[in-house]
């Protein structure tokens, strides 16, 4: 039995337990049992009937699905609406719309991400208490590729429950038994008499009935929507350019704000040297010091605010980090690879003995830089604090709970304490983990508290967005393996160093901090239990810096899968084996993984020869309960310019709700992953971020976008995640392809130096050999 020492449960487990103890002590289990975690309570409000927390039907037949998860491009509003529509027996047509509810209903809480248990499998006292405590806390968030896994079952039940109530209402109205009624297309029909009633006609009657506790769910064989690609519900507005994003919020009397952060994280404001000049600029209403650390300019227009902010001459306090540079972080991370007291994450068998006595040993050190999100929509938030103390926020956010907390915190800097906060979650112009924090919200709330009664919209310039990031940590790893007589690893031993993400996230957002040791984000991806390797050891070491670390699409997998799947290639080559055949041997006990690997190999025609200068590389990972394998094909020109010709991708994502959305997530994830592997690095000089905009933090453009082909494996497992897995194998597949093309093993990201040529294309040239 492997000894797993990692804290497998998510960081909020501690909060759940502490909160549970508190609530249990204060209110007892009696109070907790009144918390409606299923959201099936119904009521009538005017012409609309709220059949449960997820579903409202208007008397004219319009159906509004409440999806308490952020739409940031992944198509979750469509996917979860499909689940409701399936059970409710309505088509995905214009009668159906989706809203992000403003109410923080306990049924919306993201307890799945904390407890790690699928709702359809949930049982036992820990889950019972955890759901209620997290529900009371309003813990609603979108991330960890979890929305479908967490919500598809509750929303299925919501749809089925509502349908059953509509049938019961029709039965009473028509005086016929429930068994004589059928539903289709938004109508209940009594076939025997030919009478038909629309859901709109029945909804008010239905909403006063008690919801069934355990409604029958439609068998999969009868599904007409789930598993069939449906057009996204949010796209008609988006192709029109409709104002759906946080940046597009317009409110009466609104003020606009721009901001400047200290160049060195941790520095405080010493002086604004030209405040009168800045205040004298056209349209300027206020120059405000925000929490000692930023300076905001408030104006009648954002352009005026930003122009004036560009004139600000600010002195900042000096810090201990004023000489910090990327090279220093790199030295610290590499030095920590041999630290005395690392945190054990996996210790299965005696890896050390197996490696020492092995006939062949492979050893390599890898590294990946800080990177940032660069969401297409720069960070922004709009907040009003009304005279009566009621606050309201409009934010492109992944976490209403962070919005609420951000408003309270920011207002408190101005000694204002809102009585309530209403959170309006807009469409997000990309998010990638960046919008789970409260930073921009707190700043906007502070400004709103200074301008009580008027909405203030704060937009960060792209430069502030790149330089005021919450980055993915710089990381390093040393990997060692001992190979057996058959060339396969008898053991591997991995040391990884990075700055803990959890410590930073908890420090900024939570009332407690689990600390950096054993951060699962630092090690995720390094333990590959599906590879048959007799002994494995994984240890991590936190390396602190002044740089704030946050969630970043695929987190630790983004570097660890690069490290280990490149290293596995090194082992294969050391053993004289083909990288595909080698992985097939390692996966011999895991047919589900093997099927994914075989599918992608078939798509690429793995064995087919390539012309000189071209190479093919493969990688596989299991993450977020999905398995994804990719093959990258590259061409390396004589001057080192790299072209990614195509990327093949096979994924087993369990049950697929909306296949086209899964394909889109793979396409997008691959683009994101190729960009990161070839061109992304946030670097530091004199304590400050060097990059500032897309000219020095380049992003792939159309001319460089590889051909992408995606194949979804049929699977009878429940849904897995799709938002992050698409990125995860890309870097290793590319690195392995570069090696195949050139014989060079590049162990440090990014692989290339990238210039933007005439704004048209990016030109990425492999880093020179050291």
């Amino acid at each position, binding site marked *: 039995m492997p000894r797993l020492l990692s804290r497998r449960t998510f960081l909020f487990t501690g909060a759940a337990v502490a909160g549970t103890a508190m609530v249990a002590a204060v209110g007892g289990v009696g109070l907790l049992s009144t918390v409606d975690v299923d959201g099936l309570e119904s009521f009538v409000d005017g012409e609309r009937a709220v059949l449960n927390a997820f579903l409202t039907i208007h008397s004219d037949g319009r159906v509004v699905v409440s999806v308490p998860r952020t739409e940031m491009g992944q198509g979750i509003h469509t996917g979860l609406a499909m689940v409701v529509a399936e059970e409710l027996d309505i088509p995905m047509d214009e009668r159906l719309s989706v809203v992000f509810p403003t109410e923080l209903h306990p049924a919306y809480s993201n307890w799945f991400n904390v407890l790690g248990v699928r709702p359809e499998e949930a049982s036992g006292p820990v889950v019972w208490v955890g759901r209620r405590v997290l529900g009371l806390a309003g813990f609603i968030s979108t991330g960890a590729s979890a929305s479908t896994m967490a919500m598809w079952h509750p929303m299925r039940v919501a749809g089925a429950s509502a349908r059953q109530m509509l049938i019961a209402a029709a039965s009473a109205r028509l005086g016929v038994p429930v068994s004589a009624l059928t539903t289709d297309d938004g109508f209940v029909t009594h076939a025997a008499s030919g009478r038909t009633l629309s859901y709109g006609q029945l909804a008010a009657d239905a909403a006063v009935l008690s919801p069934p506790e355990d409604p029958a769910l439609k068998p999969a064989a009868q599904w007409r929507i789930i598993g069939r690609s449906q057009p996204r519900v949010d796209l008609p507005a988006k192709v029109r350019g409709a104002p759906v994003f946080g940046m597009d919020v317009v409110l009466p009397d609104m003020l606009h704000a721009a901001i400047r952060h200290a160049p060195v994280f941790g520095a405080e404001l010493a002086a604004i040297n030209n405040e009168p000049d800045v205040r004298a600029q056209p349209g300027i209403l206020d120059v405000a010091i925000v929490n000692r650390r930023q300076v905001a300019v408030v104006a009648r227009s954002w352009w005026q605010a930003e122009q004036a902010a560009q004139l600000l001459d600010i002195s900042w306090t000096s810090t201990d980090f004023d000489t910090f540079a990327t090279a220093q972080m790199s030295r610290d991370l590499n030095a920590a690879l041999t630290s005395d007291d690392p945190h054990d994450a996996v210790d299965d068998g005696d890896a050390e003995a197996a490696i020492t006595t092995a006939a062949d040993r492979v050893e390599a050190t890898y590294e990946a830089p800080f990177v940032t999100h660069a969401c297409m929509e720069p960070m922004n938030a709009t907040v009003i604090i009304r005279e009566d103390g009621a606050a309201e926020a409009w934010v492109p956010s992944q976490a209403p709970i962070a919005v609420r907390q951000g408003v309270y915190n920011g207002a408190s800097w101005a000694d204002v304490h809102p009585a309530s906060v209403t959170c309006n979650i807009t469409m997000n112009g990309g998010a990638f983990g960046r919008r789970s924090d409260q930073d921009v919200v707190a700043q906007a709330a502070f400004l709103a508290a200074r301008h009580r009664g008027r909405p203030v919209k704060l937009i960060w310039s792209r430069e502030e967005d790149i330089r005021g990031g919450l980055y993915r940590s710089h990381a390093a790893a040393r990997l060692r393996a001992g190979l057996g007589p058959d060339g396969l690893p008898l053991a591997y031993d991995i040391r990884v160093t990075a700055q803990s993400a959890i410590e930073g996230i908890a420090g900024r957002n939570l009332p407690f901090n689990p600390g950096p040791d054993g951060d699962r984000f630092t090690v995720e991806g390094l333990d590959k239990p599906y590879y048959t390797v007799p002994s494995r050891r994984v240890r991590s070491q936190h390396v602190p810096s002044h740089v704030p670390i946050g969630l970043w699409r695929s987190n630790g997998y983004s570097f660890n899968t690069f490290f280990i799947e490149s290293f596995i290639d090194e082992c294969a080559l050391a053993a004289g084996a083909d990288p595909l055949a080698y992985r097939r041997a390692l996966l011999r006990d895991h047919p589900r993984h093997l099927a994914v690997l075989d599918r992608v190999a078939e798509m690429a025609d793995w064995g087919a020869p390539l012309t000189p200068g071209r190479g093919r590389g493969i990688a596989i990972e299991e993450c977020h309960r999905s398995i994804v394998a990719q093959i990258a094909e590259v061409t390396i020109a004589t001057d080192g310019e790299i072209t990614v010709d195509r990327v093949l991708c096979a994924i087993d994502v369990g049950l697929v709700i909306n296949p086209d959305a899964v394909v889109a997530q793979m396409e997008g994830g691959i683009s994101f992953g190729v960009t990161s592997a070839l061109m992304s690095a946030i670097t530091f000089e004199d304590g400050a971020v060097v990059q500032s905009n897309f000219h020095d933090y380049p*992003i*792939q453009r159309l001319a460089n976008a590889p051909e992408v082909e995606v194949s979804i494996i049929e699977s009878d497992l429940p849904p897995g995640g799709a938002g992050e897995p698409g990125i995860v194998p890309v870097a290793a597949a590319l690195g392995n392809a570069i090696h195949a093309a050139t014989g060079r093993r590049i162990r440090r990201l990014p692989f290339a130096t990238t210039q933007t040529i005439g704004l048209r294309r990016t030109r990425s040239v492999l880093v020179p050999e050291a």
Partner: protein
Amino acid sequence: MVSLTVNGTSLDIQADAAKPLLWVLREELGLLGPKYGCGIAQCGACRVLIDGQSTPSCITPLGSVSGASVVTIEGLSDTEGTLSDVQQAWLDEQVPQCGFCQPGFIIAATALLAENPRPTDAEIDEAITNICRCGTYPRIRRAIHRAAAARDQA
């Protein structure tokens, strides 16, 4: 005061002539389709048609477009709200993910097809320089070909 035509309507705009057209459209005219993504002509989220040319409005001062005809994403659909063929192709190919970059891409594709009704992949790569962080590129290419093919048949 600067006179120009925006989405077919003649306007006299009282604003600082140095103010970028992007912010005039967004703040003075309430046309929120053009987006701010970089402010330095890198990303294309702010693109609009100026006398038919796809132009980054974030670096185009209002004063420089006096007398010009400006079309934003809002001006592509007809007065009944019917989508333009390019917008329709975008919907048919399910191009957008987050959608923030897409008005700029749709404008750029509209300008390309006006000049070159049947562009090759290489010509598309040459003409479309915008950034999409969500990585919708394969679908953008397909949507441009689809719109071109639909025009051929019309």
